[in-house]
Structures are given as C-alpha cells and as structure tokens.
C-alpha cells in the first residue's frame, strides 16, 4: 500500500543542497509565515483566515488518515466517527457542566474529546484490524461509523438526536483563538505523524508491512502498532471535532457526521500524494480552497462541481501533486 518515503519533501532541486537542510528551512519558513499571518491580517473579518482555519483542520484529519493508510495498509472509511465523537464529547461535557471548568476552548475538554474516540478506535479497531483484510476492513469501519450515527440519532436527550446539541454561542468573541488552535493542531498532527514514521515503531511497521511472512511471526506486536496508529488518527480527529464544535456551536449528525469529513481527508491525501508528510498539507490547502471558495461562488450546485473536480483529479492525477512533481523533476 502506501509507503512512507523518508524526508519531508521530495527534493525540488536536484542539486547540492542537502535535502534535510532544505526540509528544515522550508518547515521553518512555513511556520513563520502562517504563524505571523494574524499579525497583518484581520483574522476576524477575513475569509482567507477562515479558509486557513479550515485547512488546518483538514491537515490534522488528513495526517491521521494517512498514518493509518500507510501503517496498517488499510483504508479506513470511519474517520467521520472519530470526528463526531470528539465534537459530541465536547458538547456533552460543556452542556452538562461535567468538568467544572470554563469550557470554551478548555484544553482539558479538548484532550478528553480526543481520548474518547481513542477508546472507540481501540474497541472497533482490535477486531477489525486483527481479522479483516482489504475491503472487508474498509466496509467494517464504514459500518461501525454508521452504527455510531444511529446511536447518536437515537441518543435521546443525551445527544438530542437529529436536532443536535446547541452550545452557548455567546461565548464566541473572535476568530483568533480558532486560528491559533487550528494552527497548533496542524503542527501537532504533522509533527506527531512525522515522529512516528521516523521512530522505531514506524520503521518496524514499514518493514513488516512489506514482508508478510516475518510479519506473521510478530503478530501481536504488529497488531498493537496498527491499533496505535488507528488510535492516533482517532485522537487527532477527535480534537479536531472538538475544535469544530467550538466553531459551529451546534453539534448535529448532519453537520458533524457528514460523510464529507471522511471523504475529504482521503481526497486530500491522494491529491497531495500518498505516503508523504507534505502531501496532506499541500492537498489540504488545495482541497480547502476548492471547497470553501467553491461554496461561496457556486453555492447550490457546489457538490456537483466538486464531484466533477474529484473525478477529474483522480483521472488525470492519480499520483497526486507530489507524484506530479516527481514526474516533472525526475532526473533521468
């Protein structure tokens, strides 16, 4: 399946710059650029800032999905479940005053919102990852997510069913905390995935993924690492869901368990280029642009346009943007 290539970016310049130095320079530049944007753009009134916020969320979701795809070799179709669990956890804790803290952007709540999906990931992931292969696994994750959707719909006063939970919108004061939290989340997600891929766990999993026979003899250990990857993606999605709950102030199945939250990260990873750390980032910015600006300009027929766009991208750029870059800059 997708294989991780070491190094943050495929080298653009086939010259004497050391690739690792270039990577560090680019990373620092990117962080500086996005970190300082709020200082010269009025984040509260800027659609561009909203767009960036959405992109940061997509980055967190996509890095998580990419991690699972790369390390379990399986395509998870249940990402929206983790996202929803995070959002609902935040909403439920807040509305029921469970932690007796200040709630709005409460880091404790956000972390808990990340951990609840982890529990779900472990419960669902253990049987699915250990027993199911390929498409069976994918359908299993999809079905599990749908079960969750129905549980939410039937959750009575706890989840308020189809109507969803409303959070006190009066808490909203400005977009700045959203931007920063999103930004930090994106960095955190990228760093986490990067570190995992570089760690012994990552290297071991990669090697074992490619050699099935030796994998069999290390069975239990691999399962643990796969569940670990699955859980990490769940955590990232959960925190992202929590952030979005703070943003929308309404947590409902239609908005939060929307399949888009599952498909977009996949599209982003594929568009950006599977198996790279930079791919989901680039993909997120491109897809984010298409969907958020698309919504503005094309409105009602927006899904039709995006549907066509997805088809066009997959037909003509199946290796994604990073793959395209490879083709252009191949030194042959």
């Amino acid at each position, binding site marked *: 399946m997708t294989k991780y290539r070491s190094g943050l970016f495929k080298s653009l310049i086939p010259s004497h710059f050391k690739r690792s130095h270039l990577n560090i320079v680019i990373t620092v530049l990117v962080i500086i650029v996005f970190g300082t944007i709020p200082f010269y753009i009025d984040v509260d009134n800027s659609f561009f800032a909203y767009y960036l916020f959405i992109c940061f969320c997509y980055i967190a979701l996509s890095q998580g999905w990419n991690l699972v795809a790369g390390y379990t070799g399986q*395509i998870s179709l249940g990402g929206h479940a983790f996202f929803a669990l995070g959002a609902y956890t935040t909403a439920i804790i807040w509305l029921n005053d469970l932690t007796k803290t200040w709630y709005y952007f409460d880091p404790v709540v956000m972390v808990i919102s990340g951990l609840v999906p982890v529990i779900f990931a472990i419960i669902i992931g253990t*049987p*699915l990852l250990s*027993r*199911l*292969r*390929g*498409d*069976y696994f*994918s*359908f*299993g994750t*999809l*079905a*599990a997510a*749908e*079960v969750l959707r*129905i*549980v939410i*719909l*039937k959750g009575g006063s706890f989840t308020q069913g189809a109507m969803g939970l409303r959070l006190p919108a009066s808490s909203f004061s400005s977009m700045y905390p959203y931007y920063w939290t999103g930004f930090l989340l994106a960095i955190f997600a990228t760093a986490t995935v990067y570190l995992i891929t570089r760690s012994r766990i990552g290297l071991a999993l990669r090697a074992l993924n490619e050699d099935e026979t030796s994998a069999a003899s290390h069975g239990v250990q691999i399962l643990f690492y796969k569940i670990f990857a699955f859980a990490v993606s769940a955590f990232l999605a959960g925190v992202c869901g929590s952030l979005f709950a703070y943003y929308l102030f309404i947590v409902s199945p239609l908005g939060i368990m929307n*399949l888009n939250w599952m*498909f977009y990260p*996949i*599209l982003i990873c*594929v568009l950006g280029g*599977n198996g790279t750390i930079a791919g989901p980032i680039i993909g997120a910015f491109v897809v984010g642009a298409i969907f958020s600006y698309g919504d503005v300009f094309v409105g*009602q*027929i*927006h*899904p*039709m346009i*995006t*549907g*066509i*766009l*997805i*088809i066009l*991208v*997959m*037909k003509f750029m*199946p290796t994604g943007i990073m793959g395209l870059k490879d083709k252009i800059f191949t030194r042959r």
Partner: protein
Amino acid sequence: MDVITQVVINGILLGTMYGIAAIGLSLIFGTMRIVFIAQGAVIVFFGYLCYWLFSLLGIDPYLSLIIVIPVALLLGTAFYYVLFKEAAALKDRIGSLLIAVGLMFFLENFMTVVWSPNPRAVVTSYGFVVFHLLGLNLTLTRLIGLLLALLATLGVFLFLNKTLIGTAVRATSEDVEASTLMGINPNRVNAVAMAIGIGLSAVAGINLATTYSFDPVYGFDIAIKALVALTLGGIGTMYGALLGGIFIGIIETMGSYYVGAGWAQAIVFAVFLLTLTLRPYGIFGRSSQKA
C-alpha cells in the same frame, strides 16, 4: 405468527432490491476491484427517471423498463470508458473509490437541483391491488418487484454462465492477468460488467420508485446496505450477494417491527460487523478470494 411471516416476506421483497444492487456491485467489484459506492445514487436516479417518465409522459413504470434498461446499459458502458477505465487498469483502489464518490456527489446534487429534495414516489392505479395468499397480504407492486428482481437475477445468471462473454467476465473476476493471456480484452469485459451493474440498478430503481418513496440522498443508504449485503454474502459470489441482500432485508423489517425503524439500521450494521468478526470473508466467501 401470521404477522411475523408477513414481516419476513416484506423483508425478502425489500431484500431482493438490496440483492440485485449487490449483484451489480459484485460484478463491478469482481472484474475491476472498484467499490462502486455510487450504486445507490444511480438506483435513485433511475427511480427519478421512472417517476419523470410516469408523471410527464404517463408511461407505466414497468413498461418504461423497455426504455430505461437500454439507457442503463449504455450509461454503464459510458461510465466505464469515461470515468473508470484508467483507474481499473492501474488497479487504483482509492482512486476508483474517490471517482465513485465524485459521481455520487454529482448525481445527488443533480437530482436535488432538478427534482427538488422533496420525496417522490410512483403510484400507479393498479399498484394497490392486494393479493391474499396463504393468509398473507401481498401488494401487486411488491410482487411485480419481486418478479422483476428474480427475472433480472436469472438473466444475469444465464448471461454469465451460458454466453462466451459472460464466461469471460467470470474468468476476469477471478484472474485478470490469466484472462488477458487468453486474449480477452479487459476493457470490453469491464465495460460489460459495469453495463450490467447499472442495468441492475435500473431494475432496482424501478422497484424503489414503485414501492417506496425516495429522495435524492436516499441512495447512500441503499449503497451501504448493498455493500453490506455483498460483503456478508462473500465477495465474488453472485448468489451470495442476492442472499446477503435478502438477509439484510429481513433483518431490517424484523428490526423495524420489533425495535423501530431507526434501530433497525443499527442492528443491520451491528449484525454485519458481528458476522465479519466470526467469518472474515463473509458467509459464502472463500479465503482465496482477494478482497
């Protein structure tokens, strides 16, 4: 006792709709390894087509099959050559799934724009005729629906087993490389498989339109259940897909009766997950089947 039998019968009838959708998915997946998640949206599309022909031109829904089926076959062929040919050749699983998603988004939105999000149904004057058989109530529409589904299944079965191209389709589902070495053109086979898959969707769509009310987003629900049916039955077996569909139909109607419609869905998926844990390749699947 009577009521339960009635519920089961309704489940079987519902299930055949899922079943033929699943057979279509099975053909498409078997030959091209494409998870055609747009199947549900396509079914609903044909439902709308049937509705449109009925309300605008007064064409009886069952007679409209004469128009709709050839359209479906052509559409299926077009889908393959325009959308999926490259992804099938590259065996690009995610890519083909995403293309199917794109198609699904497009179709759902298209239908919403053209036909509005309000639910529709096709109601014929004779549709409500009820037959009383062995103490059961069977509406004519459901009976015809069952008949159509069975005929369609029979047709596909005969095609796959008695024609040369059908045999080639089966062979390609099993081993693409080996079939290529026989001189079988994978594109032709894939296009045929997709055409039949869409053709089956047309039949399911007519069934849907005449039996239930539907709206543009109903398709995803059908698609998931068809996928579940296919997986439960065991990927790669035609009868498995049909039986899987019927099984799901029965669970759904029984669940609806005992626990209520909402939970019935959850039960369907929960049963699915449970079955997979116990039999990771589906009820009829063989471990030699590559997923």
